[in-house]
């Protein structure tokens, strides 16, 4: 019996090749999308799950506001972890990461290599996180200063010839003029890709040069390992006590502050919270994450869209099956007359749909296999098709054809098996096609989805275009950036001057700070008065720049003057932005004073600074953020040299600069980039979302059109008689095409009406992420609607014209 089902199923598929091809191909595309998204989502959801203690590890997040912008940080003070461990038995262990020092220059042979994946960690790091050692004992590895734990691939990179052991060997780190050797005390397996931190070098925390014991400076990513069964929400309630007991007394040493209540009343904030480690990747919108975060919203959206696309393909199956029911009706009639039971027929049809789904799945896996590299590229992932065989996905994969077969096949099976044999055998089979409201609803659903995706795509790209063309207050074009200039040491000024002398370089500056999101940040507290109080102080970005920074970046002064060598004392001068002036409440800021702690004394003494100029506002962070306060102070050291370039031959210029670099900093790595590229990097995730949205939109439209094509084909077939009559009565080709197309186009229009408000709502939500954004105009909707209509029209008219030019005589014969 089962064998018979399969035989008939295969024969039917083979007999209706065109129809089967539409179904299989459509389903395969839907399934391939599903597979890829499943891989992606599983990967996104798996972040940090590799830790055995994943359920009990929490990171401390800080929410601060001190008369400046709201700060949401992944970092807290150096004291918080150890204090909590001391005071609360629920804390089994704590560990800290200090990654503020950034890149490290590490010696290999006679050259130095810039290593970005480096951090200082506590010796407890390996107790909290599960990072298995290949050699050495990680529990004690970082107890001593000048020790380092490296990953397997780093060991291979630096000691390729040592197949045996690298324990006890040294990693030499250059810092200024000196080179410090760190002893390798353990080698761990590479940190998995799905970890929210990815380091190759873990140096001992004991080597960090820091003003230890400061409860108010937040510079450490701190993790708590809570004892199993601890309710972390309940534990968070201890934080106000901690603040009152430790942070407040510490702050009172240098700020006049009576109580936390007073602090809060003046609109300020100091709050801590715990974030489960497994939520960091997808849910964190805190600043200074160790790796770029994912976004749970995108996970939801992608999953939903993938599911939708699969449903679209299933709808094609349903629609085509019922639409061509006329053809199957006779078979059903004969089978019923021969005594076949309805449930047998249902089984037959379900086997057919499941076989179709299974074939589609095989093709889908092939498609996914070939598309995966492209997908990895777009999604910035390194997924492998082999992950499909993982324990989490494989059962789902095996069940998939049955689910899809049932989903797509049940309605047609019930519908077809319900035919009354007498009716169908009399030849009254026209009933099959017409008057199917469900089919109309399904077509509307398909096109509504497509139109929403088209709108989404247009909105995302309009916003990206807006970002590209918005006046930013600085000029991001033609600015060449040389990283790691600290390696030049004393030669730094010489380097700057030599490059400036090259033709095609109009100005240059040395400063670690760039007006893009992913560069250095430094928040400091300033006071309007010589004594710091909660009311007088403001927290803002403080950038150290040299005399040529404003010119090189193309910024403009709104009032006052830039730093200048003509005024010897600019070391106690300060520039602020227009926004800062407004926040400070200064109408005439030039000449007014601000007070800030001296560089090395902490907050105990304040130095007076005079405002000498106001810079026109410029966007130094992502356009997602509202402009915050910022000031600039004079400084001639920095890790980045930026040059405004006018030369057409930038390649030639870069190699010229590189040669200069080699003579001034022999053995030091040379790396360059352009400011506009770094600017674009800020919106990488939006670019990615845009690209994926385009792909989804194309797929959805394609599948919907595939279905529409099939429907029109069958409709034309069903209505040949009517078309014939109408032609004999004088209908032109145009009349017939209109006749066949207008119903479908009407459906597309209804779909547009449904899609518009949903898309409007969704895209407004998305775009609200941006503080600076486009207005979603009516035109976007009109364009998307027209595009869908046009695509549908082309699809439909192809078949409609074919039907319209057919000779009516054939269809009107009366035999």
């Amino acid at each position: 019996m089962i064998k018979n089902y399969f035989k008939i199923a295969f024969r039917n598929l083979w007999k209706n090749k065109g129809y089967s091809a539409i179904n299989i191909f459509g389903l395969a595309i839907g399934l391939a999308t599903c597979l890829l998204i499943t891989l992606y989502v599983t990967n996104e959801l798996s972040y940090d799950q590799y830790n055995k203690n994943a359920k009990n590890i929490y990171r401390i997040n800080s929410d601060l506001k001190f008369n400046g912008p709201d700060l949401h940080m992944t970092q807290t003070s150096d004291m918080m972890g150890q204090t909590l461990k001391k005071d609360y038995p629920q804390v089994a262990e704590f560990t800290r990461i200090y990654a503020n020092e950034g890149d490290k220059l590490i010696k290999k042979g006679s050259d130095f290599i810039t290593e970005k994946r480096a951090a200082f960690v506590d010796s407890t790091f390996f107790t909290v996180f599960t990072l298995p050692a290949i050699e050495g004992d990680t529990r004690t590895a970082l107890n001593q200063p000048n020790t380092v734990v490296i990953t397997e691939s780093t060991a291979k990179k630096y000691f390729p010839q040592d197949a045996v052991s690298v324990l006890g060997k040294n990693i030499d780190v250059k810092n200024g003029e000196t080179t410090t050797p760190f002893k390798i005390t353990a080698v761990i397996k590479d940190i998995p890709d799905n970890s929210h931190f990815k380091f190759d070098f873990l140096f001992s925390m004991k080597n960090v040069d820091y003003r230890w014991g400061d409860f108010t400076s937040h510079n450490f990513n701190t993790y708590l390992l809570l004892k199993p069964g601890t309710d972390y929400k309940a534990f968070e309630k201890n934080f106000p006590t901690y603040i009152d007991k430790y942070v407040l007394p510490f702050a009172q040493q240098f700020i006049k502050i009576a109580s936390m209540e007073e602090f809060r009343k003046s609109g300020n904030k100091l709050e801590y919270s715990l974030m489960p480690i497994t939520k960091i990747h997808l849910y964190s919108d805190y600043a200074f994450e160790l790796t770029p975060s994912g976004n749970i919203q995108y996970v939801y959206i992608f999953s939903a869209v993938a599911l939708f696309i699969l449903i679209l393909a299933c709808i094609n199956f349903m629609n085509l099956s019922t639409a061509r029911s006329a053809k199957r009706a006779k078979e059903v009639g004969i089978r019923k007359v021969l005594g076949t039971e309805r449930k047998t027929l249902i089984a037959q049809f379900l086997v057919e749909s499941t076989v179709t789904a299974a074939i589609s799945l095989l093709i889908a896996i092939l498609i996914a296999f070939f598309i995966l590299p492209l997908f990895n590229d777009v999604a910035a992932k390194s997924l492998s098709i082999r992950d499909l065989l993982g324990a989490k996905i494989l059962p789902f994969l095996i069940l998939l054809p049955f689910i899809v077969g049932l989903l797509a096949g049940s309605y047609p099976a019930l519908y077809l098996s319900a035919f009354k044999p007498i009716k169908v055998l009399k030849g009254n089979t026209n009933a099959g096609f017409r008057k199917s409201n469900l089919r109309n609803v399904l077509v509307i659903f398909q096109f509504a989805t497509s139109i929403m995706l088209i709108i989404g795509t247009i909105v995302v790209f309009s916003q990206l275009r807006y970002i590209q063309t918005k006046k930013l207050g600085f000029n991001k074009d033609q600015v060449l950036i040389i990283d790691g200039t600290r390696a030049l040491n004393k030669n730094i000024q010489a380097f700057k001057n030599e490059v400036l002398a090259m033709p095609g370089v109009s100005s240059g500056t040395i400063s670690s700070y760039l007006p893009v999101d992913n560069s250095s940040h430094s928040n400091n507290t300033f006071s309007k008065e010589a004594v710091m109080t909660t009311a007088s102080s403001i927290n803002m970005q403080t950038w150290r720049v040299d005399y040529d920074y404003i010119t090189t970046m193309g910024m403009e002064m709104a009032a006052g003057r830039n730093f200048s060598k003509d005024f010897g004392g600019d070391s106690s001068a300060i520039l602020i932005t227009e926004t800062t002036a407004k926040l400070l409440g200064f109408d005439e800021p030039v000449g007014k004073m601000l007070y800030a702690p001296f560089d090395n004394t902490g907050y105990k003494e304040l130095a007076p600074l005079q405002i000498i100029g106001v810079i026109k506002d410029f966007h130094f962070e992502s356009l997602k953020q509202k402009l915050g306060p910022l000031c600039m102070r004079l400084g001639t050291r920095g890790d980045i040299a930026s040059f405004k370039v006018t030369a057409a031959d930038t390649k030639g210029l870069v190699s010229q600069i590189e040669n200069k670099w080699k003579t001034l900093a022999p053995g030091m790595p040379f790396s360059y980039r352009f400011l506009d590229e770094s600017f674009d990097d800020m919106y990488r995730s939006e670019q990615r979302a845009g690209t994926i949205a385009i792909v989804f939109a194309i797929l959805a439209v394609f599948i919907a059109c595939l279905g529409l094509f099939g429907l029109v084909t069958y409709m034309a077939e069903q209505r040949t008689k009517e078309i014939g009559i109408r032609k004999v009565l004088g209908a032109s080709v145009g009349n017939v095409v209109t006749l066949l197309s207008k119903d479908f186009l009407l459906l597309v229009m209804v779909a547009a009406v449904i899609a518009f408000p949903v898309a409007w709502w969704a895209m407004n939500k998305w775009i609200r992420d941006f503080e600076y954004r486009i207005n979603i105009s009516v035109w976007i909707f009109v364009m998307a609607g027209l595009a869908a209509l046009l695509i549908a029209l082309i699809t439909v008219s192809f078949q409609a014209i074919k039907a319209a030019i057919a000779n009516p005589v054939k269809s009107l014969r009366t035999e």
Partner: protein
Amino acid sequence: MIELKGIYKWVNTGSNRTFILKDINLSIKEGEFISIMGPSGSGKSTVLNIIGMLDEFNEREYHFLHESVHQLKEKQRAALYKQYIGFVFQAYHLIDELTVYENIETPLIYQDIKTAERKAMVADMLDRFNIVGKKDLFPAQLSGGQQQLVGIARALISNPKLILADEPTGNLNSKQGEEIMNLFSELNKEGVTIIQVTHSEKNAAYGSRIVHLLDGRIEH
């Protein structure tokens, strides 16, 4: 009015050529009522379709009202039959989804006649055939005779000079058939040229002339 000169029609199946019509010469004057008779497969319907310009032929000439049909383009031919010819079918070929009224109205829509004018014309026709009360019914709600009546009304609506009827009574009982044939006679008396294909001697007798076909040839 109609001049068929040496009409041949054939189909090629592999290397064989099967003739459907051989050397048909037929001349029909305005106001005639012709009955074409012959056994199944003798080519009656094909001749009718060729006269109606729905079907093509392979050889020689066809003149219709001084137009040389064999030299016309598809579009011109369509314009010609739209204007002068009405068709009646054995299976009525009404459009199931349209009411009686709408079925009759359809040819007028394709001739770009204005709504008000269409209304008047259809109303006239409904009146003339005594089916005003049925104008909002669908074909499935009518008897065969009534459906054919609607079919004829539809054929007449655009005032054709020629009516081509392919076994118009084939699906009707004798009483209904008789009514239809009487209607044809009346129309003929009003000046409409009629060509019908029929199997029945009795019906053929209504015509002014009978043409016999056998194996694609006219028998004399």
